[in-house]
């Protein structure tokens, strides 16, 4: 499979007092077309900054990002944010169709498309509801649908389920898994949960902190379609869990010792 995103020698730093604080140091990797790519690391490793640079919300100090677009008129990326980011002043329908509206697509056409994605996340009954009538989990589903409905080249997700409770997280992981296994959209997913990487990802990139660098990239060759309920008993799950944990453990210990 060909590369969809090529990230070359990304550095990010900003001045702090009279020193230069390096957040990301020489980050180079590539993500394949249709891949579910997880970025995993301790807090402070710059993973959110890296995602925001890919999203174009921040600029890198140096380096370049090449994203191949097919077709050309498609938006490059859409992001699902970590915190509550659904517009409270718009209905579920208007939130989900927001990207299409910004692209100047006519109301009838965008509502039809949005209805499809609202159905996909199981919120058809709430199409005309405002976010304050929805639970935290439902709002995050709207956020996922808003990004998917824009049909971007790559889907960026910044710990989208991090703020949810355990049950909601499991349900949303299962739903995302199902949706993704149907669409196979190139996805970059940030998380601080090993389990989440193994459940969802094709590969996981482990980062170290201060400054953020790539420690290693591990293949998650667990069979698909996956099921959140049974994946932990799949052969290979425990070995992978250990592999990820061991490569991170040194890092965390090194930091607490110093």
């Amino acid at each position, binding site marked *: 499979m060909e590369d969809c995103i090529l990230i070359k020698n990304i550095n990010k730093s900003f001045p702090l007092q009279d020193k230069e604080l390096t957040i990301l140091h020489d980050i180079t990797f590539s993500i394949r077309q249709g891949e579910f790519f997880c970025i995993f690391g301790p807090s402070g490793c710059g993973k959110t900054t890296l995602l925001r640079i890919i*999203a*174009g*919300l921040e600029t890198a100090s140096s380096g370049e990002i090449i994203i191949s677009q097919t077709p050309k008129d498609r*938006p490059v*990326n*859409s*992001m699902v*944010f970590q*915190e*509550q*980011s659904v*517009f*409270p*002043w*718009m209905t579920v329908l208007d939130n989900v169709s*927001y*990207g299409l*509206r*910004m*692209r100047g697509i006519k109301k009838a056409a965008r509502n039809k498309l949005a209805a499809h994605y609202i159905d996909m996340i199981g919120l058809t009954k709430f199409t005309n*509801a*405002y*976010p*304050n*009538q929805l639970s935290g989990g439902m709002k995050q589903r709207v956020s996922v649908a808003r990004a998917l409905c*824009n049909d971007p080249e790559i889907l960026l997700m910044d710990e989208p389920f991090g703020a949810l409770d355990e049950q909601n997280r499991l349900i949303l992981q299962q739903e995302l898994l199902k949706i993704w296994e149907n669409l196979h959209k190139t996805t970059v997913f940030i998380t601080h949960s090993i389990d989440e990487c193994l459940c969802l990802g094709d590969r996981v990139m482990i980062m170290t902190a201060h400054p953020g660098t790539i420690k290693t990239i591990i293949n998650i060759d667990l069979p698909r379609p996956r099921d959140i309920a049974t994946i932990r008993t799949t052969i290979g799950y425990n070995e992978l869990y250990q592999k990820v944990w061991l490569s991170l453990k040194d890092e965390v210990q090194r930091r607490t010792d110093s």
Partner: protein
Amino acid sequence: MTKQAKQKLIIRTLSVLSPLTLLILWELLARLHAIDVRLLSSPSMIVKTLIPLLLSGDLLYNTWISVQRVLWGFIAGSIPGILLGIAMGLSPFIRSAVEPMINATYPIPKLALMPLILLIFGIGETSKIFTIAIGVFYLVVINTMAGVLNIDKIYLDVAKNFRASRTNFYLTVALPGALPMIFAGLKLGMGMALILIVAAELSAAKAGVGWMIWRAYDMFDIEQMFVALITLSVLGYLFSLVLDLVERWVLPWKQTR
């Protein structure tokens, strides 16, 4: 009846009963000559004055004059207030250029400007409308700016991520995001408008509720003064009722819970 329903009933009767008691007490004290009716009047005397004023159309005419002044002043103050407030909230350049002037002139009591306004605009309608407009403007501009500045940064990121154009950004994020605070400003502005109408009608007015109060003062007609005061209270109530209705219509996402 459940304990809760009982408590609800008591609370409701109490809120009707207490003003009623006060009115009865007022009337009683007046009849017993415990208070000076020449200064404090009595409910029955006020009603006796109210009815002819209402029937002759005098009261309605004066009310209508004041309502027009308040509305025009309100509109003339709030629209520039909203526009400038949004601009100040979004652009650090406009903010740093305008904010010092606003901060420096805001503490000036608007009543202190009345003589100057009269000199500039003369004794016609413009001076009254302008006085009200200025009072409303400050409250609206300050609240609108705060509303825009308080929009959660995440929504700006979302708009940027979805490539919102400048116009779309105003229409889909800045304005709706600031609307709750804009309404808070409008409500404060409406209160200010009612304060200023009375002052504006003190000098060089020939009609209006405020003018009624000052005429009653000149003629020592306490009952008419009370009638005008009651009218102002009813006006204030109606205005806030209308604003609440508009708010509910414009901000449906704030109501439904």
